[in-house]
């Protein structure tokens, strides 16, 4: 019989309702990995916001993890961000530096 050890982490309780920095995502994965569970459920209940950096690190760490990680109660804005970082597009040129005159202050 194969017994799977599943643990749920309510991300808001461990971090915040606002998921801001890349390192905090990393630290969260270290915490989850220390549980030695085979299966992790990340509960995003009541999470309000997520930065792109946090989401990017979360997705990368999830891909690299030996554990199976899945999410539940993911708010729409958080889900959108996780999808955006999973399929990055080419960066847009905002400043065409060669065309600009440089002022001296």
């Amino acid at each position, binding site marked *: 019989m194969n017994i799977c050890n599943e643990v749920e982490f309510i991300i808001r309780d461990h971090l915040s309702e606002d998921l801001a*920095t890349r390192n905090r995502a990393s630290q969260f994965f270290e915490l989850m990995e220390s549980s030695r569970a085979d299966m992790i459920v990340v509960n995003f209940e009541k999470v309000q*916001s997520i930065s*792109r950096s946090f989401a990017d690190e979360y997705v990368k760490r999830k891909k690299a993890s030996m554990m199976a990680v899945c999410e539940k109660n993911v708010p729409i804005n958080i889900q959108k961000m996780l999808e955006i970082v999973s399929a990055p597009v080419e960066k*847009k040129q*905002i*400043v065409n530096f060669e065309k600009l005159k*440089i*002022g*001296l*202050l």
Partner: protein
Amino acid sequence: MTVLVPHLPALVQGYLEYARVQNNYLETGTIDLSNIAWIYPSTLLPSIGLITNNPGAPYISPSDPNVASYIVTMVMMGIDYAPHGGTYVPIIAIPSNERELDPVLQRLYNLNNDGREYGGINAFKYLVGELVTNIYEHSQFRHAYVMAQRYPCKGFVEICFFDDGNTIPGSLSSAGLNFSSDVESISMAVNGLSSKKTEGRGYGLQSNVRICSEGLKANICLVSRSGVLHIDENGPKVYNLRDEYKLPGTIISIRLPYPAKEVDISEYLQ
């Protein structure tokens, strides 16, 4: 080509107010704010950095008592102060230990009503989250501050981030990415160049600039070492600072309409 510029955007002028204070300090050893008649965050935050990095320096407060007491209020209130109905929030110090950041950010969000009038909760928190991430990842700062100041009668809010760390050109240069000028380095960072060469990097600053300039119709000014990049609805403008005006750090100032309508940030992230 370098040219002299007659008309400067307000955020650039705000930085130059500070640069003159810094220049005077380098010449006299005194931090003299007596000539400042009106102080915006883009002047105030680097001035606070100058004061905290030079604790023994004599300090002359602004001669206008209103401005002087404003500075004392902003500096002395600290993170535990909650203004009632005021239009200002205190300067928030970003903790050097990132594990202590979450309650600090919560405080900042609460003081600003979660950014509801600054383009919505998502836009405001995204802006703060990304810019603070950049400070931790690239700056190695001794001091870093953030503040937002509303000017309801003038119809705008100014949000500023300051750190006295590596600078954008310094960070890129450490990764072997060197350019002809500091303002070119800043421009490349805004275009998505990152000192970290892994995939998925370099989107944060770029998306913030897009959310500000395209979504919120805001003005954004990045000053780092001797480069200044200002972006508004008319596009980008770039400046070099003379040596005595160089900033030993980075300041990102954003001036957005107040109240600003809610912005769907996902449009600017892909």
